[in-house]
């Protein structure tokens, strides 16, 4: 177990720069998730940490050792792959034992280690099966078992759940979290699924175009996104982005929204943003669907809450909530209401805009204000 330091890592293939100056400090025992759209460089970064790809510049330190030029086999790192990468010609026992055998561990110890891991992951009964005889979830467990058996300093996971069906994925997610709580080892985990990132991580690194956009706890990333990309990537359904004009009201600022030819001024919470330089200019208001709800008396009385009448365009029930698509400032805007409160498409409906968690972005730089 050790802390992992990624210092100013760059990686390019010829003219294409995949990673552009990545810096991450991951303390011992932390569960860190790299998340981002495909092609953002997250898997490349993971491969660089594993030593499967050489960095162009920068350093990777594990504990107090510089691992940058060390061969993968000598880094004491274990990795679980998206395809599981089980050796098809070996049975489960051999798959788990292979790495130990190569490291010349005595036979008896290997046996003890394999049975410990098998017990931990409840795969004892399938030790002499071949990978082809296992289901997706079982293969996933074996792949984890192979990683666990070596007791490495750090675990890397490359989209380990993405080949499982939805139900199994949720189950394995919980198990993985339990496992981390029990083992308390450093984990770097790559996924493109922001729900997985939110639920599993101690901290999330959101990546795009080879740059870490934001590195923080799931709640920080969700509530305080650094820019439009992070705000839009995290959370489902996605945050609403409405371009609107800033104007001064009595004791602060407000942004103007128009719905069905009616104009509303939504007050800005000074704790969320200081818009003093933006009076009369346009900004992008970011507001999550759950901050736009049907009228509830206890909410209506809160500060920074405004009632807006909208026309319902589309209704999407999800069971627990119903998503209502409306048109604000001529842009689509999703609202989250209680199923019983939703109207029909074409009807008018009153919505409460709660601005206490709203965020604002510069339309040009797309950075947070």
């Amino acid at each position, binding site marked *: 177990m050790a802390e992992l330091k990624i210092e100013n890592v760059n990686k390019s293939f010829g003219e294409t720069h995949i990673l552009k100056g990545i810096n991450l400090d991951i303390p011992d025992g932390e569960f860190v998730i790299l998340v981002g759209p495909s092609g953002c460089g997250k898997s490349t970064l993971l491969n660089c940490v594993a030593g499967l790809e050489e960095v162009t510049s920068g350093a990777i330190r594990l504990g107090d050792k510089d691992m940058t030029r060390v*061969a993968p086999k*000598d880094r004491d790192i274990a990795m679980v792959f998206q395809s599981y990468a089980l050796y098809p010609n070996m049975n489960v026992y051999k798959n788990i034992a292979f790495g130990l055998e190569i490291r010349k561990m005595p036979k008896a110890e290997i046996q003890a280690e394999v049975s410990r891991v098998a017990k931990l992951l409840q795969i004892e009964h399938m030790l002499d099966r071949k990978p082809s005889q296992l289901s997706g979830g079982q293969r996933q467990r074996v792949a984890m078992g192979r990683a666990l058996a070596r007791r490495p300093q750090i675990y890397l996971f490359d989209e380990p759940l993405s080949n499982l069906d939805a139900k199994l994925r949720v189950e394995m997610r919980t198990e993985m979290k339990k496992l981390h709580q029990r083992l308390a080892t450093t984990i770097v985990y790559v996924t493109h699924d922001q729900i997985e990132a939110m639920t599993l991580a101690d901290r999330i690194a959101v990546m795009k175009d080879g740059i870490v956009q934001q590195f923080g706890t799931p709640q920080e990333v969700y509530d305080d996104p650094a820019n439009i990309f992070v705000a839009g990537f995290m959370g489902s359904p996605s945050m609403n982005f409405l371009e609107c004009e800033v104007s001064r009201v009595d004791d602060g600022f407000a942004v103007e929204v128009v719905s069905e030819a009616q104009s509303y001024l939504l007050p800005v919470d000074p704790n969320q943003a200081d818009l003093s330089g933006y009076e009369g200019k346009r900004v992008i208001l970011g507001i999550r669907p759950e901050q736009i709800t049907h009228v509830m008396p206890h909410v209506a009385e809160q500060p920074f809450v405004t009632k807006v009448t909208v026309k319902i365009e589309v209704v999407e029930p999800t069971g627990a909530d119903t998503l209502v698509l409306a048109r604000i400032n001529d842009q689509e805007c999703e609202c989250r209401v209680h199923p019983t409160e939703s109207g029909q498409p074409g009807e008018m409906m009153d919505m409460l805009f709660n601005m206490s968690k709203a965020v604002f972005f510069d339309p040009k730089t797309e950075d947070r204000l």
Partner: protein
Amino acid sequence: MSVTNRKGLDYWLPKLVLSPTIAITVIFIYGFVIWTAVLSFTRSRILPQYEFVGFEQYVRLFANDRWLGAMSNLLIFGVLFIAICLIVGLVLAILLDQNIRAEGALRTIYLYPMALSFIVTGTVWKWLLNPTVGIERFMISLGWESFVFDWIVNPQMAIYTIVIAGVWQASGFVMAIFLAGLRGIDTSIIKAAQLDGASLFSVYTRIIIPSMRPVFFSAFIMLAHIAIKSFDLIIALTGGGPGNSTDVPAIFMYQFSFQRGQLGMGAASAIVMLMTVLAILVPYLYSELRTPKNG
């Protein structure tokens, strides 16, 4: 745990393992082709010698009636061989693709000639086509007294007997390629076309065959390659005769280089053969590399 540097064993081992083949490629493939090219610009006769004469060997080559005859024979043989193989192969593949009960057995029968040596094929067909004992004699014995099938001894027609034997040997192979191509087509496309009201015939002519263009292409390349290299089949079937009527560049090259002591001209003919192959191959590879992977 020992920490080895990256540039250790695993860094140079792959290169070391590949090095014999790199040497083979550099010396035996590229080196030897260049060497042959160099020879073709020399006055070499029975033994190689390096007195350069420019393009003289090529000029002599293209003034040589036997070479011109060999080239035109190759053209006739090549065009017919490729065209008939493609047609027969495609038709057989489509017929076999109709849920045929004994498909496996029929496929095995159609394809087995490809496992034979061209020498064996040539030997068998040499006697089958022989008018005094083969097919002509057989037809006459059936009572068709006036039947004549003497192409193999007729200088005008002998080249077509090469086509017959060549097609017999290679068309099953083309069938196998096309069948693999047919099986690789997304069946939902065919279902969609049938829902659109297309008949089986138009499904094949309008959708399936056009979508097999890459398969046609690679079958064409393989057949062209076989045709240009063809040597053993003709040696065994007609020996290049009667006269020189079935002469082809490969035989010309062999005889001039190794039997008639005309190394320079033999080398020149070999280079012309190589250029012909490249002329067919390069556009193919170019289009293959340019278009993203099809299927």
